[in-house]
């Protein structure tokens, strides 16, 4: 199985990039959900002017 190193490299890159992208999306989304919650809380306490 010559060149199997290249095969491994290609699939690893695909996996790393897709996984990394999904992770970053996830963490950004969690951060936003928290921000959204806290904003909604703050708005409930002071009614909009």
């Amino acid at each position: 199985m010559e060149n199997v190193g290249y095969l491994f490299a290609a699939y690893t890159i695909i996996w790393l990039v897709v996984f990394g992208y999904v992770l970053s999306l996830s963490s950004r989304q969690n951060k936003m959900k928290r921000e959204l919650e806290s904003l909604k809380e703050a708005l409930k306490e002071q009614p909009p002017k």
Partner: protein
Amino acid sequence: MSVRNILLGCATILMVASLYLVFIYVPTEATMGVVQRIFYFHVPLAWVAFLAFFVVFAFSILYLWKRAEKWDVLASASAEVGTVFTTLFLATGSIWAKPVWGVWWTWDPRLTSALILWIIYIAYHLVRSYAGGSRGPRFAAVVGIVGFIDVPIVALAITLWRTQHPGPAIFQGGLAPSMMLTLMVCLITFTVLYALLMLIRIAMKNDESEIRRLKLTGN
């Protein structure tokens, strides 16, 4: 069962199936050996990237026509996922090329057009962030439209230019049925993955505008 969870389930099952097909089921190709298996992910990545580009084109036109924010959200989400997929198919193509053709890169029509496509994607995001306020989505839509029309023209020009110096051929002969099956399953897998990533990204963008709105009207 939200759409997203269904897609997530399908994507997972399909990915496992694809990996099985690529690494266990499909026979090794005669001339290129084991490395040829990169093909089964490389090609679907490319096709879905082009699909994403077309989606950007279509929603950019819709946005310029109707001016509703949701069209811009769809266009920019597709552009983002498209950029990721384009980067991946360029990278895997290069990794595949090195053992098979002996070079990391060659300026043949397909590769060069793909590189231009990648640059246009980058320009799309650049313009969106560099133009202020309402201009960002509008300018990005312009780039999405003009870029999509231009990429086939670029490909045509480079093809006509390069037929003077024939480059390495990508595939001789047709595909065996087992290879076709593997390719198709991988294609479906990546299309589902694209749809899933789009859904996530769109939900995020909607949350972003929600936050912006709340900040403006509330505090």
